[in-house]
């Protein structure tokens, strides 16, 4: 075995998976020019660090669990949105149960063992935007999405909700990947290329 090689552990304590997908047909009474499908996929796993304390080294478990989650969640996302080529924007999130630390959520979504692989599986280049929180079961988390190759593309700034009615339990973590096949329904707030220069001087007003 190669030194330092990581072997993802299939036994990640997975309790359930929840897919949430929506398709907007009309918004403000009109059909979008480019109707987008958006989806989030949530995996409920046991928190491997409950009672571990704030000085515990998180690296071993994150390298074994996060790659399995990245593959599982992106496979479901791609299948539910019609293929990886359809996906234009992405995001990620985690909800840690009340016996865990936010740091535990971060360990599973903010390291290369999750983020790099999600980006690779979804064929993106951007940093992946995120949300995380600690909450009781049934909390709705709003997951931000942005463009997978051009993060500053303003038309693709959007969110989708993720919620598991009976998770996370106190000793669980909900890990989420999310994606969209297009922009907001009627994007019309310009972009960096079209923005005027806005400063207090250009507005001839100093906010006070």
């Amino acid at each position, binding site marked *: 075995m190669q030194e330092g090689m990581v072997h993802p552990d299939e036994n990640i304590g997975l309790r359930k*998976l929840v897919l*949430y997908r929506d398709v907007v047909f009309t918004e403000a009474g009109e059909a979008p020019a480019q109707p987008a499908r958006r989806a989030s996929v949530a995996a409920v796993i046991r928190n491997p660090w409950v009672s571990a304390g704030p000085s515990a080294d998180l690296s071993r478990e994150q390298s074994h669990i996060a790659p399995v989650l990245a593959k599982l969640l992106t496979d479901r996302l791609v299948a539910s949105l019609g293929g990886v080529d359809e996906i234009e924007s992405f995001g990620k999130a985690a909800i840690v149960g009340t016996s865990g630390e936010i740091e535990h959520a971060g360990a599973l979504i903010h390291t290369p063992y999750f983020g790099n692989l999600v980006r690779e599986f979804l064929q993106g280049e951007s940093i992946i935007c995120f949300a995380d929180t600690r909450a009781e079961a049934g909390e709705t988390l709003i997951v931000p999405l942005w463009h997978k190759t051009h993060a500053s593309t303003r038309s693709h700034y959007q969110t989708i909700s993720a*919620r598991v009615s009976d998770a996370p339990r106190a000793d669980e973590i909900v890990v989420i990947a999310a994606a969209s096949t297009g922009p907001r329904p009627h994007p019309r707030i310009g972009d960096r290329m079209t923005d005027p220069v806005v400063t207090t001087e250009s507005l001839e007003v100093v906010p006070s």
Partner: protein
Amino acid sequence: MSVRKIVTVVEEIRTEGGREVDRPARVAVVAAVIENPWAGQGFVEDLAPGIDANASDLGGLLAPAVLDALDAPAEAYGKAAVVGLDGEIEHGSALIHTLKFGDHFRKAAGATTLLPAIEKRGPAGVVFDIPLKHITDATIRSHHQTIEVRITDAPHPNEIVIALAAAAQGRPQQRLAPLSTEQ
């Protein structure tokens, strides 16, 4: 029928009670957010024209979609109507409590029983539970189950959420004795 959005939820349960389930337990919901056909009309005495104009189309839209989302033969099913705050619960009931709606699902699933249902009124983001029972024998206790749904921005006051739910099996780790053993 004016559909604003369609929401799909699929749950797959791998462990329950700390034990793996024999095969992953799948339950799917597909919900259409539609404009309330009677919105802004005051008290409408005769709901039949609105039912005729919408109920069959809704059943035809949702039944294949929920079976597709389930991706397995359905063994249990249920339905729901959640009316926005400006409507009557009667409006939601009108659209789901008609054979014109339910027969699409029965036919597509090979089902024979009546669909268990909930009807309620609430704000956008209201949580609702859809009850499911066995598709050919509503007394089969192993298949009595529910799935919880929430759509953050629906129903608006002038909208109705109409949903169908389907399960590919009974409850995970179901182990209650059949009803007949108590008779």
